[in-house]
């Protein structure tokens, strides 16, 4: 893991274990095995001082703040589904303006949490605006790859072939036909200094990145894979295993774009075939029929293409030494 920005923060398991105060306290109503809850707790371990959280509508928000209870041990606000970006911008602007008046130099960090629904789709405008305006905050998309809170409907983050209630696996159509939206590229296109992916089983990487994101002056985005036992149809005990499989099959590459330099933080030199990932989840089981088996190859091709694109970008931005092997023969985009 690179730590080139000079931060002295080092993730230490012993220190983390000593920190008994949970900023996201136990007793909330998220499902057993909920990926987002693990990711959020890890990210909150990276806070460096006074921190405020804003939250888009979704699993995380709804299950942690059922009046009159709240699981948040820090200032927290939720307004609506599609505006976490704008809400964060509003908080940041107010703190800035009031600090000008009072002369205060107290630094308050702002983290916005949104699911893939509230980020990729309905919330993308609000996020785009906030990134473009350069507010100093961290946006975390916890990606469980569907609108899980409302009962597993497809989102722009749902992978190709996944069955959801609005992209069901039927006799004629095998689940979602589109491929996953490239969220990292969209954020990077805004010219922000730090964008990264993360996965809950790689806790050291995720916490390090969260701290990096917090320390960036200006906007930073984390896109975290957050496996959902209910929506993906696997045993709640296997959340971390699923996260590991996603990375080992290259389905969810772990990389960062740090001041323009692309870095593959978890290089997967000998990937498992994507089939290992698909067969472990009920949402893909229809792909193993004779009729739709060919979709698995399409998914494998797309995974290879995406991973190779990232490798290429790492090589050409100085995040990785150039390889001696020839460039991939796959076209740059597959639809």
């Amino acid at each position, binding site marked *: 893991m690179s730590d080139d920005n000079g931060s002295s923060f080092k993730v230490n398991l012993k220190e983390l274990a000593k920190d008994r105060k949970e900023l996201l306290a136990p007793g909330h109503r998220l499902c057993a095995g909920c990926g987002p809850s693990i990711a959020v707790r890890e990210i909150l371990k990276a806070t460096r001082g006074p921190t405020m959280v804003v939250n888009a509508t979704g699993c995380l928000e709804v299950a942690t703040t059922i009046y009159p209870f709240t699981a948040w041990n820090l200032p927290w606000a939720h307004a609506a589904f599609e505006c976490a970006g704008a809400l964060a911008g509003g908080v940041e*602007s*107010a703190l800035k303006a009031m600090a000008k008046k009072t002369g205060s130099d107290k630094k308050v960090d702002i983290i916005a949490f949104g699911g893939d629904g509230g980020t990729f789709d309905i919330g993308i405008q*609000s996020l785009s605006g906030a990134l473009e305006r350069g507010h100093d905050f961290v946006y975390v998309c916890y990606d469980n790859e569907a609108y899980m809170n409302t009962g597993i409907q497809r989102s722009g983050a749902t992978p190709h072939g996944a069955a959801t209630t609005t992209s069901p696996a039927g006799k004629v159509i095998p689940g979602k036909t589109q491929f996953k939206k490239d969220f990292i590229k969209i954020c990077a296109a805004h010219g922000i200094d730090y964008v990264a992916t993360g996965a809950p089983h790689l806790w050291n990487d995720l916490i390090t990145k969260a701290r990096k994101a917090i320390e960036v002056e200006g906007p930073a985005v984390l896109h975290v894979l957050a496996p959902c036992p209910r929506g993906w149809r696997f045993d709640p005990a296997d959340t971390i295993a699923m996260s590991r499989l996603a990375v080992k099959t290259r389905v969810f590459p772990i990389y960062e774009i740090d001041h323009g330099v692309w870095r593959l933080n978890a290089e997967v030199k000998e990937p498992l075939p994507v089939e290992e990932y698909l067969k472990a989840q009920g949402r893909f089981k229809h792909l193993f029929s004779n009729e739709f088996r060919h979709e698995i190859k399409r998914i494998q091709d797309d995974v290879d293409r995406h991973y190779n694109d990232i490798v290429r970008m790492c090589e050409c931005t100085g995040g990785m030494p150039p390889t001696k092997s020839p460039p991939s023969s796959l076209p740059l985009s597959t639809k």
Partner: protein
Amino acid sequence: MGSVGMAYAALDSDVDVVSAYPITPQTFIVEKFADFVADGETHAEFVCVESEHSAMSSCIGSSLTGARVFTATSSAGLALMHEMLGVASGMRCPIVMAVANRALSSPINIHGDHSDSMNSRDMGWIQIFCENSQEAYDTTIQAFKLAEHKDVQLPVMVCIDGFITSHCMEGIKRLDKSKVDSFLPKRVAELKLDTDKPMSFGPLALTDYYFEFKKQQEDAMDRALKVLKRIQDEFAKASGRKYDVIDTYGLEDAKTAIVVMSSTAGTARHVARQLRASGKKVGVIRVRCFRPFPDKEITAVCGKLKSIIVLDRSCSSGHHSGPLSDSVKSALYDAGIDMPLCDVIFGLGGRDITPKDIESLFLEGLDAGKRGAFKRKYKFVGVRE
């Protein structure tokens, strides 16, 4: 201009954050404020959001942090932020918003009518309609005090007629900084996002709690009218300019009256003055505070009237009674006052209503008062049929 005056009012009220998106005919408000910021005249942050939905969302974020917040919109912009209006009022954010009333689409039209504000009337915002630029400036300053009052804690919409008031050149008197500061102290938010005292805002409230939140909001709305009156009195002391939740003309002996909001009140008063000079007993009731609706204040002045004409600058589609007329009828009914009432839909999409039109209405009202009924209780004036 009415619009520009409101930007000055926000500046004079020492706002902390303005998050806004331009839309005709409010645009001058945000442009003027941008000038103040660029010239270093204010410490305020000016956030050029990418849509009105984000404008209100951003305002909510700022307001929850304890800042004094202002924004402006019209028409489609108000419609786009509709969802967030309820979030702002439900979370008791004392945001002040200037609305240059403009017709809603379709067809697209940039001119003044009240359809935008009326379509938001149930969203828990205090709504005050201003007749002219001076009132718009004065009311914006009052609005901050009203919104932030501990017995209220509700957002306030200050409305002016699009183009008619927003774009008309009028001189306005600004209030001296010292007078504004003593009238309107700094905002002190009792509950806010504060790292020293962590709280959660915007919870999920299910069937067992939601209703109580709404009741408390309604109780606050009920208290708002009295608070507004006190604030208006304090403002009169500071500025010499008096305001009330309604104002009346000629009601001491009028047999018929026109009930109207916003700039058209001026035309109505002008015609009434002429008619009264020729002995016709007519009057005008201008409703300034529309939400909360001043039921008692209106019924208190209706005693001598034999008929009423309500001018509605918006329709409630599918119902033969516009929004203002609905509220007036409701107030009269509750007070046991039964008299002929004619609801007139006028001015949609900025169509002018002329002094001649208003004169005909007054005469019709006098006639209806004598006969005990209007020929038609609901009609459109000024439209080609």
